[in-house]
C-alpha cells in the first residue's frame, strides 16, 4: 500500500483520458450486469428446479391437456413419492400488460411439492377453508397493492371467457432469492366445478409434477411414467423439472452463448481501449520510469507498478459498473411481469470482479513488460 499514492498519481495524471477509459469500463460492466440479470431471468428456473421433481406433460405439446385421472395411476408407479398438477389459466388482471401466472392447484399436495413457497399456517388454513381463495406471491401483491381479504377479478380468455373472482387469503414468500413470487394460485376444485357447471373441459389438467422417492432414480421413474401411458389417447412426455425449464429458455435460443458472445465483443473492445490507454501512459513517462529504476526499483517492482495501475483502473471501473448494475437491477423485473427472476446474482458479481482483475492484467502486461525491460541510462535520456 505504500506505493498507492504513486500508482494513483500516475493514474490521475491525465484526468480526461483516465475518466473516459474508466467510463468505458464502467459501461461495459453495467452491460455485463444487465445481461447476467437477463440470463438469470431466462434460465434461473433451471437452477432452482428440484433435482427430484419431474414434469409430465402431453407428448404432443404443453398446451394439450392430460386427464385428471392420470394422477392415481402415477401415484401407483414404483419410485413415485407424490403427484400434483397445475393448469395454465392465462388470466388478465385489468390490462393484458399486467402479466403474471395464475394456476389452479390442489392446495395441500401443491404446497408439499413446492416447499420453496413459504405461506404462514393460518393463511394456509384460510385457503383450505375458502373455495374461492387464492394465494399470491409477494412481488405481485406489492405490485398491485393487494392484501389479504381483497377480492380480485381476473378475466380468463381461455376458460369460459369470463371474469373470475378470487379472494386473496394468503401472500407467500420465496425460500430463496431467485424463487418466483409473481404467481397466483387458486383452488382446483373451484376451477373444475365452475368448468363442469358450464360444461367446459372438466377433468383435464395442464401438467403434472412428480416427486421421485430417490432423485438418482428420477430418469427411471420418468421412463416408467411414459410407459404407463403409452398408446393411450394422451401419451406423456416426462422430464426433469430443470430440463423442462431449460426447454422454455431454449425457445429463445442458447441464452448463455448469446450472452457470452455479446460480452466477449464488449470486453474485447474494452481490452483495446484500456490497453491503448496504458500503453500511452507508459510511453509518456519513460524518463520517469528510468528515474525509478535509477533509485533502485527492480524490474519486478516496475512490472508490478504498471500492472497495479492497469488493474486499479479496470477494477475501479468494474466495481462502479457492477454497483450501478446492482442498483438498477435491484428494482426488479423491468418488463412488468415477463421476467420474474430478473436480478443480478452474487455469483455473477464475483465473476464480474474476477473479469475486471483479469482485464487489468491483460491490458497492463505489455506496457508493464516495456517498463520492466527499460534500460535505465537510455530511459533517463528521454526525460
Amino acid at each position: 500500500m505504500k506505493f498507492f499514492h504513486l500508482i494513483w498519481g500516475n493514474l490521475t495524471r491525465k484526468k480526461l483520458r483516465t475518466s473516459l477509459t474508466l467510463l468505458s469500463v464502467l459501461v461495459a460492466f453495467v452491460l455485463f450486469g444487465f445481461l447476467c440479470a437477463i440470463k438469470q431471468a431466462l434460465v434461473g428456473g433451471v437452477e432452482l428446479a428440484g433435482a427430484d421433481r419431474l414434469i409430465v406433460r402431453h407428448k404432443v405439446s404443453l398446451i394439450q391437456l392430460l386427464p385428471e385421472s392420470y394422477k392415481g395411476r402415477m401415484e401407483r408407479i414404483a419410485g413415485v413419492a407424490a403427484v400434483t398438477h397445475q393448469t395454465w389459466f392465462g388470466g388478465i388482471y385489468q390490462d393484458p400488460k399486467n402479466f403474471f401466472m395464475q394456476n389452479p392447484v390442489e392446495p395441500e399436495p401443491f404446497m408439499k411439492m413446492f416447499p420453496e413457497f413459504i405461506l404462514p399456517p393460518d393463511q394456509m388454513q384460510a385457503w383450505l377453508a375458502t373455495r374461492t381463495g387464492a394465494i399470491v406471491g409477494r412481488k405481485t401483491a406489492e405490485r398491485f397493492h393487494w392484501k389479504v381479504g381483497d377480492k380480485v377479478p381476473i378475466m380468463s380468455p381461455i376458460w369460459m371467457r369470463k371474469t373470475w373472482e378470487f379472494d386473496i387469503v394468503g401472500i407467500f414468500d420465496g425460500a430463496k432469492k431467485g424463487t418466483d413470487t409473481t404467481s397466483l394460485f387458486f383452488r382446483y376444485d373451484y376451477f373444475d366445478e365452475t368448468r363442469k357447471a358450464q360444461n367446459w373441459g372438466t377433468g383435464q389438467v395442464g401438467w403434472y409434477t412428480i416427486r421421485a422417492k430417490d432423485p438418482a432414480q428420477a430418469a427411471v421413474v420418468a421412463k416408467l411414467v411414459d410407459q404407463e401411458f403409452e398408446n393411450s389417447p394422451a401419451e406423456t412426455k416426462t422430464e426433469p423439472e430443470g430440463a423442462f425449464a431449460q426447454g422454455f429458455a431454449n425457445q429463445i435460443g442458447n441464452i448463455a452463448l448469446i450472452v457470452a458472445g455479446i460480452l466477449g465483443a464488449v470486453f474485447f473492445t474494452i481490452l483495446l481501449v484500456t490497453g491503448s490507454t496504458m500503453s500511452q501512459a507508459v510511453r509518456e513517462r519513460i524518463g520517469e520510469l528510468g528515474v525509478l529504476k535509477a533509485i533502485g526499483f527492480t524490474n519486478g517492482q516496475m512490472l508490478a507498478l504498471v500492472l497495479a495501475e492497469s488493474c486499479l483502473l479496470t477494477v475501479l471501473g468494474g466495481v462502479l459498473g457492477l454497483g450501478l448494475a446492482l442498483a438498477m437491477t435491484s428494482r426488479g423485473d423491468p418488463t412488468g411481469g415477463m421476467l420474474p427472476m430478473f436480478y443480478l446474482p452474487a455469483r455473477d458479481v464475483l465473476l464480474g470482479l474476477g473479469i475486471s482483475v483479469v482485464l487489468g492484467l491483460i491490458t497492463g502486461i505489455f506496457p508493464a513488460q516495456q517498463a520492466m525491460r527499460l534500460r535505465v541510462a537510455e530511459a533517463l535520456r528521454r526525460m
Partner: protein
Amino acid sequence: MSENKANQGALVRVDGVEKIFHRAAEEIHVLSELSLQVPAGEFLALMGPSGSGKSTLLNLIGGLDRPTKGTVTVAGDRIDALSDRALAAWRARHIGFVFQLYNLMPVLTAERNVELPLLLTPLSKAERRKHVETALAMVGLSHRAKHYPRTMSGGEQQRVGIARGIVTDPTLLLCDEPTGDLDRKAGDEILNLLQALNREHGKTIIMVTHDPHASARAARTVHLNKGQLTNEPVK
C-alpha cells in the same frame, strides 16, 4: 562489510574501463582504458566537452550501465558483476542521484518525491516521514513539502532532487550537471548545498559539469576528452 572493504582503499575504483556503444553496424568508443579512484569524502568534479564520456562514466559508477570491459568497484562491491536485481538493490542502498533536469515525479508533492527511495526500505511510515523531514530541512525546503514540482522554481526543484538523493544517506552522491539548467544565483545555491553536504556531512560527491565555475567548488577536478582522462582542461 562493504564499509570495511571500502576503508581499505578508494571508495570508487574504476579499472581499465572501456565502453562501446553500437549504432547499427558502427561501434562508438565512448570510454577507453579509463581508470579512476575516488577516496571516501571527496568532492570530485568531472569536466569535459559534450560527448567526452562524462555522463557515461557517471552511469557506470552509479550502476546504471555496465562497462564493455574493465571493472567498477564502489564501496568494495564489484558492481559490473552484479545481476540486474542485485544492482538495483545496490543502487537503492549506496547511490543518490541528482539530475540536470531534476527528474521529479510531477504527480507527487515534494515530500512524496523525496520519500520515493525510502519506499524500497523496510522503514515504517513514521520513520520515512522523519527521514523526509530531515532531508527537506537540510535543503531548506521544509515549508514547500506539500507543493508540487510545477509550482516550484528550478532551484527549488533541484533542491528537492538533492533531498531525494540524500534521504537514504547514500554512500555516494552522483550529480549530473546539477546546475546546468539553473541561472547563476540558483546554481550557486545548489553548489553551496553540495559543498556543505561534502564538508559538514562528509558526503562523497562526484559531479559532472562543463561549467568551470561549478567545478571550482569541488576539491578535485578531472578532465575527460574522447573517453580518456587528461590532466589539463580540454581547450
